[in-house]
C-alpha cells in the first residue's frame, strides 16, 4: 500500500473543503492499495479527452469530475461505450454542458476518460463506521439485489477468512456466485482478497468514514475482479484541522 500517495489525495480533498472523495481519486486510492481498477485519466479539454481515449483504447467511458458534483448520474455526467474520437469530443461537450446546468457554482469542471471494463456479475462492497462497534463491512450483489431487496451481509471488523466465506454464502443471491444458468463459478478468491485489501485500508486510515465500491465486476474463477466505481468519504474535521494538515505538508 502506498500510504504517502493516499495521504496526498486526502490532503487535496481537504484543501478543497470537501470530505467526499471524487470517484477518480477514490479508485486511485484503491489502486494504491493494490486493487485492480480500470485505466483512467482526467481531461480538461476536448482535445485532451480525445488524446487520452486513444491512449486508453476505445470504447471508453466519460464521467464528470468535480468536487461539487457527488451524484454524477443526477448531473447527467456519465456516458458509456464511446467508440470514436468524434463520440468522445461530442460526449465531452455534452457532459460539461449538463454539469453547468446542474451546478452553477463552478466553471472548472473536468471529465475523466476511463477504460470500459467488460461487464460481469455486479458486486457491492461497502464500509461504514458504526458509532458503537467501529468499522462494519457490507457485502452484496449489486443492482436490484442491494437496492430493492437489501440482500446484504454485514460483518464487524476485523474479519477472519471464515467471516468472508460466510458473507458469500449467507446472501439470498449466493447461487449467482456459483456455477449457475450456464455461467461459470465466480472468482471468489479474488473477491476475498479485495475485501481484505479494503479492510487494510480502513484499519490504516481512521479518517476514512465510509466506502462504497459499487459496482465491482466479478469475473469467472481465475479472472479476478475490477472496481468500476468507488466512493470514499472522509470524516468531517474542522477547517482549523485542515489548515493544520496542510501546513504540516
Amino acid at each position, binding site marked *: 500500500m502506498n500510504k504517502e500517495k493516499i495521504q496526498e489525495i486526502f490532503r487535496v480533498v481537504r484543501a478543497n473543503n470537501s470530505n467526499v472523495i471524487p470517484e477518480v481519486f477514490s479508485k486511485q486510492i484503491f489502486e494504491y492499495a493494490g486493487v485492480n481498477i480500470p485505466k483512467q485519466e482526467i481531461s480538461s479539454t476536448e482535445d485532451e479527452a480525445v488524446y487520452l481515449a486513444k491512449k486508453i483504447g476505445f470504447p471508453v467511458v466519460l464521467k464528470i469530475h468535480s468536487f461539487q458534483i*457527488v451524484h454524477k448520474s443526477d448531473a447527467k455526467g456519465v456516458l458509456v461505450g464511446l467508440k470514436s474520437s468524434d463520440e468522445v469530443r461530442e460526449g465531452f461537450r455534452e457532459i460539461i454542458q449538463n454539469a453547468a446546468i446542474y451546478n452553477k457554482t463552478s466553471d472548472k469542471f473536468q471529465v475523466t476518460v476511463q477504460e470500459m471494463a467488460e461487464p460481469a456479475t455486479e458486486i457491492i462492497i461497502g464500509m461504514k463506521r458504526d*458509532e*458503537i*462497534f*467501529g468499522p462494519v463491512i457490507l457485502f452484496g450483489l449489486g443492482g436490484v439485489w442491494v437496492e430493492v431487496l437489501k440482500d446484504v451481509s*454485514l460483518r*464487524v471488523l476485523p474479519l477472519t477468512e*471464515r467471516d468472508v466465506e460466510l458473507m458469500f454464502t449467507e446472501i439470498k443471491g449466493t447461487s449467482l456466485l456459483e456455477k449457475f444458468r450456464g455461467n461459470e463459478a465466480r472468482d471468489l478468491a479474488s473477491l476475498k482478497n479485495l475485501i481484505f485489501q479494503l479492510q487494510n485500508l480502513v484499519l490504516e486510515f481512521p479518517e476514512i468514514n465510509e466506502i462504497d465500491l459499487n459496482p465491482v465486476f466479478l469475473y469467472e474463477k481465475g479472472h479476478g475482479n475490477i472496481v468500476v466505481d468507488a466512493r470514499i468519504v472522509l470524516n468531517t474535521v474542522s477547517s482549523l484541522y485542515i489548515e493544520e494538515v496542510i501546513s504540516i505538508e
Partner: protein
Amino acid sequence: MENTLTLLQESLDAAFKPKSIAIIGASNGARLGGTEMRLLLESGYDGQIYPVNPKEEIIQGHKSYASIRDIPHEVDRASVIVPAKVVPQVIKECAEKGVKVVQIYSAGFSEMGGDGERLEQEMVTTAREHNMRIIGPNCIGTYCPSSGLNFTKGASTISGNIAFVSQSGGIAFDMVSRGHITGIHFNKIISVGNCIDLDHADYLEYLADDEETEIIGFYIESVKNGKRFIDALKKAASKKKVVILKGGRTATGSQSVASHTGNVAGDYQVWEALFDQTGAISVKSIDKMLTVLLSLQKISPIESGKVAIVGNGGGATVLATDYCEEVNLELAELSNLSATSLDQLGVADGGRNTNPIDMPANQLAAEEGRLFGSVMKILAEDSEVGYILFHFNLVPIMNYMDLESIVQKMITELESIDRTKTNLVAVLRYNGEPEVEKIRYKAMKLLESQEIPTFKAIEEGLAGISVIANQSLKGGR
C-alpha cells in the same frame, strides 16, 4: 491485562459469592433496604451480614453500624440502598474501607439527566483509586442460589448451568420469577443497571471463565465500549453458549450517512451481524429467551438424530408436521422393527400412523399409561430417533379419566427409558382453567424431576428442539 483480569475475577467473585456483605440502607421495614436484608437471611446466605443504618441499633437481629467505616471486619461486597444524593459519599467510604465491589441499587443518576452523569464519573474515579468495582447504579440486585444471594421472594434455591446478565431490572426479575417455574435453573442472575464501571464486556469476560456456567443469557440495550464488547463476546461465545435478547432497535440516527452502505446497514443490523459473527444465538422476545434457555439446558444435540412426535389430537399432529418443515426439522422414518412393534400394539395400523403418532386420549391412558410407555420405548430404541416430542392435550384426557393420576402414571412410565441416545421433550397443552393449570403444574414438576423440559405448545417444543438440532448449521464459531 492479566492483572486487570485477576482483579475483575476477584471483584465479581466478591459480588456473587461474598464472604461478607454490608447492606447500606438496611432497615427493619418493608421497603427495599429491609427486603434486601430479609431475602439474604431467608435465602441461606451464610457469610457475614453487616447492616449499615445510623438510625438503628439492631436490624433484623444483627448489630447495625452507623457507617461502613465502623465495621471492624473486612467487607467483600456492599449493597447500597440509599437516596441518590448520599450515594457518592457512601461510595467514597466503601472505597476507603477496602470493599471489593459495591452494587448500587439507588436510581436517579445519568438516566435522569441533570447532574447525574458527573456524579457517576466522580464515583468511578473514587472507586478506581481504591481498586473497587461498581455494579449499577439503578439495578435491582444479584441472584446466586449457591451463595444465598437473592432479590425476590419465591426464588429457586437450585443452581443450574445458566448465568444471566440483564440491563433491565424487570427482565432480571422475570428470569428469577419465571425461570424455575418453567424448569430453567440459573447459577447467577445480575441486574447491571447503568454500567458506569463494570459493563457488559466485564460480565461476559468473567462468565466466559466461570466454571459453573455453560450457558450465558443476556438482555442488552446498549454498550459503551463496542470494541471491548466484541472481544468479550467472541471469547465468551467460543467457550459457552451465549443467547442474547437485544432491546431497542430503532436507530440512534445521530450520524449522517453519505454512502449506500450507511443507508443499508442500520444500527440494529450491525448488532445482528455481530451476533452471527460471534456465534451468539439472538432471540427477539422474553418468551423466546426462556424457550431457548430451557432447550439448551435440557436437550442435547444428537448427531443425525431426527424427530418423533406422539400425542393426542389429530389436527394438532398434522399441524406439528407442518411446523417441522418451518423450523427445519425432519421427522424420523422409523425402522421396520419399530413399525411392526407399533402395529402389534394397535397404535400404528399396517404401517400408517407411525410418525407422527396420533394416540387419542383413551389410547394414551390405556393400561394405566403402559401402552404410552411401550410406544415411547419403541421410539427411544429406534436409532433414527434423536428427539421424541410427546404431547398431551390435558382437557380431553380429563373427559375420560382422573387426569392427575393418569398423567402421573404416564410420566412414571418414562423413568425406564434409556435417555443416552434420545431426548425427551414434553408438551402439556391445556385450556387455562385454574384447576387444569394446577394439574399441569404438578405434571411439569414431575417431568422436571426427570430432567424433561416441558413446553406449552407443540410449536414451542419443536422450536426448542430446532435450536439444538440446527445449532451446528449456524455459522460463526
